[in-house]
């Protein structure tokens, strides 16, 4: 049994708690202890990527302080793990704080995206999930090209009972989210989203999944606007789903009103 610190990410905490709850349930079901360090807020990626490394510094410092005591940190997001691995030490060095940079590198070395943790650390691909839906998987840019998670999510999905995994055409193309890119270059972002939605719809899947709630918020927001009848669901929710406890069913009333990741208006 491992003791796992959940790095929830600010987006999942605030808007997509069902993805974080699913991560907790999945890891507990696999026999591990999950703890939630309550001092965590945001990794600072939005600040770094929008050009505010000075503002990000205090968030990097907080993240490192909060997670330094733990041996294993797991997040349901490739993008936020990517920021921890590839940006935190750079932000610290840019501010001349070499000590923070080396502490950030130590935390980064113990931080895993969910599919990495399951496949590489725990060595499992069959997690005992049941999800009777036609599903297509969008490899988010940061899972594909920053973390190089490769086929780990697909291997996990293929082992889910009842799940019909269909390949997404031109899967490796960006959905157009890009954080504040979606606001600053909303037209270009929308053009990219239009093509991504076209490919999702072409699969005939009723669910589009991914390892990042942010990209799913983007794709799901577009599909919802078109009333396309396709949901977006985080990978963790599918892996947490079982016959006894299917995804999307309120359990204990805790996140009863939480919709699937795409949402409605």
């Amino acid at each position: 049994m491992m003791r796992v610190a959940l790095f929830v990410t600010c987006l999942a905490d605030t808007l997509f708690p069902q993805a974080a709850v699913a991560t907790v349930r999945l890891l507990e079901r696999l026999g591990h202890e999950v703890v939630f360090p309550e001092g965590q807020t945001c990794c600072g990626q939005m600040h770094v990527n929008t050009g505010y490394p000075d503002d990000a510094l205090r968030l990097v410092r907080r993240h490192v302080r909060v997670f330094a005591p733990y041996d294993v940190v797991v997040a349901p997001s490739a993008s936020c793990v990517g920021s921890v691995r590839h940006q935190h030490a750079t932000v610290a060095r840019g501010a001349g704080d070499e000590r923070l940079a080396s502490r950030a590198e130590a935390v980064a070395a113990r931080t895993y995206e969910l599919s990495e943790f399951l496949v590489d650390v725990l060595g499992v691909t069959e997690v005992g999930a049941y999800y009777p839906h036609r599903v297509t998987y969008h490899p988010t840019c940061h899972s594909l090209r920053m973390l190089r998670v490769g086929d780990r999510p697909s291997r996990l999905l293929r082992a889910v009972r009842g799940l019909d995994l269909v390949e997404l055409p031109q899967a490796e193309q960006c959905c157009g989210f890009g954080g504040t890119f979606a606001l600053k270059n909303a037209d270009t972002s929308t053009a990219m989203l239009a093509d991504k939605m076209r490919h999702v719809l072409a699969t005939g899947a009723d669910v589009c999944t991914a390892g990042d709630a942010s990209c799913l918020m983007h794709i799901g927001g577009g599909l919802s606007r078109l009333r396309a009848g396709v949901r977006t669901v985080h990978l963790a929710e599918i892996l947490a789903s079982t016959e006894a406890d299917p995804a999307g069913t309120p359990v204990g009333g805790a996140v009863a009103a939480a919709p699937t990741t795409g949402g409605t208006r």
Partner: protein
Amino acid sequence: MTRSFLGMPATAPPDVGHLRGAEPFPAAARRALSDAQLRRNLGHATATIRSRSAAVIGEVPDWPQLRAAGRAIKTDTMARLPELLEQLEAAVTAAGGTVHWAADAVEANRIVTDLVRAAGADRVIKVKSMVTQEIGLNEALEAAGVEPVETDLAELIVQLGDDRPSHILVPAIHRNRAEIREIFLRAMPGVDPALTDEPAALAAAARRHLRQTFLSTRVAVSGANFAVAETGTLAVVESEGNGRMCLTLPETLITVMGIEKVVPTWRDLEVFLQLLPRASTGERMNPYTSMWTGVTPGDGPQAFHLVLLDNGRSAVLADPVGRQALHCIRCSACLNVCPVYERTGGHAYGSVYPGPIGAVLSPQLTGIEDNASLPYASSLCGACYDACPVMIDIPSILVHLRGRAPHPRAEATAMAAAAYTMDHPALYAAAQRAARLGRLAGRGHGLPPPLSGWTASRDLPQPPSRTFRQWWAER
């Protein structure tokens, strides 16, 4: 250099050349995105080049090692650029060439114009070159009464169409063959009115148009892909043979070259001549690779001038993160894989250097204030970094430049407030609850700018009944 620098090196001067757009990227992109023909032309062309390039790269077992070697050679070159340039100057001079140093576009244009005048010519033939587009050489020559004739097919299309290049390798990528036929019928003297839009017919029309010009023009202007410091050898890599004619037929050859194009040794070409064609055109070997060293009596141009151009490159070199942009070998692989470029095309970037590499190079050459929107013209998807044959970490440079870009005051205030809130968990939790209540009241319609950019085309997620941390506290 003709100037002695004190402090930071100068950036490229305004009002000359083509490094600055007339409007910010989002506005230019918005117009481009609504051009359905452009979208179709670009989508088709980039997908074709992408698959061709991927196929021939897949044949090379040591591609990762070649990329690493390319990066290592460029890193070494930048670390001792002044010494290598002086070595190049000595070697070119010893081989009978003349080397000129141009601090910026104004100096380079003046040097070339004076050389053309001194040769008594009123027309020059040109090999496709990015650097002469960068400095606006054609406009400078025309102002001096010299006619520049572009001999690369795509550059000719751009020139006859009174257009601007939109791609580093395929300047007329935004045009399809029907549009090219129309341009030729309108602007090519003596063209057959029965011209069809068959690619072979269009190429033949251009060939007939250019042949007499090749034979009767005494001065040529080229750029350079590489210059070997060790030997003084210049190299131009092209695929039509027009370059070979320009480099061999005239009496006088003038080559304008960015100072970052130097490589230390002849052996280094082995690496780049493998990387470049596979990454750029998707060819195993480049069709026409012309190399020359100074002047050879009785063979080829009898006068050779090399103009070494800075135009902001020393300023790029001064930035430890940004200097990687100088490693670029202009293959345009990053353009072909970029989801932003594929949809907006090159003109939206304003500069002759479009796409991901342009988004990091142009703002550094001009100073970030003049191209402040370009580092944001990317979703940071990382496809460019994977495609780059010399492993330029373009996403990291984009993020670095965003940190140096001027920020809107309201955005800066909001970002600082957000960071402060997120650094205080109690405030953060209160803000989460407030955001949820606000959403419940407003349902996400008609958000104020910049958030309206989201709701224009996407719904907002329905707010959950509680945040994760509330769930955790209550479980």
